[in-house]
């Protein structure tokens, strides 16, 4: 590549790789901002680096065209926002961007993740509010206590051993059912081992 720029390709490469000392970095950034050819090289080096790391991270040239259009639009704005460098002389400032920030589908994924997070938090808050309402209702009308499920996928959880003993006792004596001998006794004999 023919070197028509005020700064060498090596300096731009070192800037991209973060290998420049602080004072040198400030100088290269100042010169980069005033040299459009150098800016293209700087962008190309970033693309090369991205391609080397992952093809997915390599943006297309449309990004560059978009940047140019954005710059044009910003230049046309009557009140142009101040660039960061204008206030602080851009010394030592390195804007760190995520490696995948330029890929649209990653942004979409991030957006969906945020939406999902908002959904989960919202549901949780709603459930809490609902629970609070339930508690309030329970305080107002203590007719039937709330049900506590002692179930796990592996069968009834031994949450309260005493309850299981009473349940076993109920099954031993509680078979006063017309369906008891045909099916109830077999049912309990088969199933009561869980509680005994």
């Amino acid at each position, binding site marked *: 590549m023919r070197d028509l720029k005020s700064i060498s390709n090596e300096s731009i490469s070192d800037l991209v790789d973060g290998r420049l000392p602080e004072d040198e970095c400030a100088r290269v950034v100042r010169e980069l901002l005033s040299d459009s050819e150098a800016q293209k090289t700087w962008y190309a080096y970033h693309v090369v680096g991205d391609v080397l790391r992952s093809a997915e991270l390599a943006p297309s040239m449309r990004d560059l065209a978009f940047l140019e259009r954005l710059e044009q639009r910003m230049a046309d704005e009557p009140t142009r926002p101040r660039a960061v460098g204008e206030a602080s002389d851009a010394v030592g400032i390195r804007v760190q961007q995520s490696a995948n920030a330029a890929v649209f589908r990653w942004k979409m994924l991030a957006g969906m993740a945020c939406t999902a997070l908002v959904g989960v938090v919202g549901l949780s808050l709603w459930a809490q509010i609902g629970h609070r309402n339930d508690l309030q209702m329970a305080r107002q009308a203590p007719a039937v206590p709330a049900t506590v499920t002692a179930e796990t*996928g592996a069968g009834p959880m031994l949450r309260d051993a*005493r309850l299981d003993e009473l349940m076993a*006792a*109920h099954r*031993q004596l*509680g078979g006063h059912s017309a369906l*008891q001998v045909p099916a109830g006794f077999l049912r309990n004999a088969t199933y009561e*081992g869980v509680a005994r």
Partner: protein
Amino acid sequence: MRQLSARSAGFFLVVLCGLMLHLSVRAQAPAVDMPLNAWLLRVHQAARQSVYTGTYVVSAGGSMASARIWHVCDGSQQLERVESLSGAPRAIFRRNDQVVTFFPQSRIAIAEVRESLGLFPSLLKSSDSSIGDFYRLKPLGVDRIAGFDADVFQLLPKDQMRYGYRVWSERKTGLIIQLQTVDLNGKVLEQSAFSELQLDAPVNVGKLAKSGSTDGYRVLRPDLQKTTADAHGWAMTKGVDGFKAMGCYQRPVASTVGSASGGQSTMQWVFSDGVATVSLFVEVYDGRRHVREGVTDMGGATHTLTRRLDDWWITAVGEVPSDTLHAFSVALERKK
């Protein structure tokens, strides 16, 4: 013209009569209920008199258990052996109402008498049975279970205080080969069924009877004493619709193997509507152990409800909706 109009009127009359007859048949069809007690007696007798072996599977509350069953009827005696195929190894041997549970790993056998097992034939024959006041029987058609043709019936509760049941009864014998407990919304809470069944199986009665021997086992006999609620100072202020007191016992509930609860005596008052059963347990309140009041879903159709009543701790257990347990717990009254 007149002839035509008379003919038309006759035609419409015939159509109208046909339509009315059709509507009347449609209206009557769902209302045909089976005689409940006679049906219960049939399935009861079938279970007593049939000779069979099979594999029985119970699924309740997301968990399953299965067991191997041997059943014979030798004259007036019923012998039955149930060997667990899941969970802790155990075998239950039953000779009429005498039940022994064997735990082969700990070499412990629990021997008990289950009076309720002999209760129903006479109750079903007597006019005292009120099962028909609270359930109605509806035939649902035919199905095939474990290779056998079965008549399907629905036992529908007439109020909200009890669950319903769907029963698959083997066509020739009447033996129940599948049973579902169904909640008020029609959801199946638990199911018991033969996954494999051999009717009139060649069971060796002598060998089966020998398997009930407790030789080599330490036999525990739960100290169960008959009592009355009145003698313990308890009464029901208001009965729960359809449920009658079936018996009251005093027992150390911690009769289960390896229990850490000690042998504290507990009153157990048993109620039944003929199909569903509720036990009311009354213990002395202990603030260290009795900490949580409320309903617990024990899986399947079984619920428990705990409640403190002054110096007492009440636990209601039953295969009924939690509202029914609540009705029992608030109706219980201390008399002295």
